[in-house]
């Protein structure tokens, strides 16, 4: 376990400061988030399909 005397690698450094933080406009983000949810669902389907195709062609190559 570390004891806080581990040299330069373990020293704490200054973090970048952000003076003015952006408040999130939830209403505006709602529209975008619905689109993104749809994109992720479609990507998930596509990747499943691709994996199935790859595993099927693998069987043929191996002579199953």
């Amino acid at each position: 376990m570390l004891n806080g005397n581990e040299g330069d690698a373990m020293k704490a450094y200054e973090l970048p400061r952000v003076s003015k933080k952006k408040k999130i406009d939830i209403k505006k983000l709602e529209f975008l988030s619905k689109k993104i949810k749809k994109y992720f669902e479609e990507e998930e389907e596509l990747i499943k399909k691709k994996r199935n195709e790859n595993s099927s062609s693998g069987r043929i190559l191996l002579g199953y």
Partner: protein
Amino acid sequence: MKIVLPVEFFLVIKDKHLILDTSVFIDAFSHIKDFGVLFNQLKVQHNVTLVTTEHVLIEFLKGSTTETRLDEKKAFFEKIIDAYLPCRPDLLKNLLELLKLYKIDSKDLSLTDLYLGALLVKYRKNIFLLTKDLTDFPTHIFNRATYATLLEANSIRNYGVYNFDQSNKE
């Protein structure tokens, strides 16, 4: 849907930096009202700086089927965060120290998670990580400072808030 927080939640991370990992962004677009309210409370009422890394951005964007979709995902992502934390070459030293602590458990970790862990090591008490991947940040290495729970109609999702505070380990 509702996010339930323990009483100390805001007190623990007040005035600090909070890193959001990929799992949080993925859940945020499915529950933007709940997460949006929480993020605004953190930013406005508790002076928390929401940050992430470019590794997390890439994890969020990969697989995008068109340029437009990639741009929209990036826009969503950047409307939430206040800044990206730079992963400079010197972070490698922190990462190597972290590998010594993880031992065999680092074998299956993603590079993104390792870099997030290295940032916790580098910035110590000043920074926290919000993540749903609870097993990737074990409590024999990191301090689980607080947590959040998302209550859904048919499930419950838990998020840990971790930092690297060795004073709790002695």
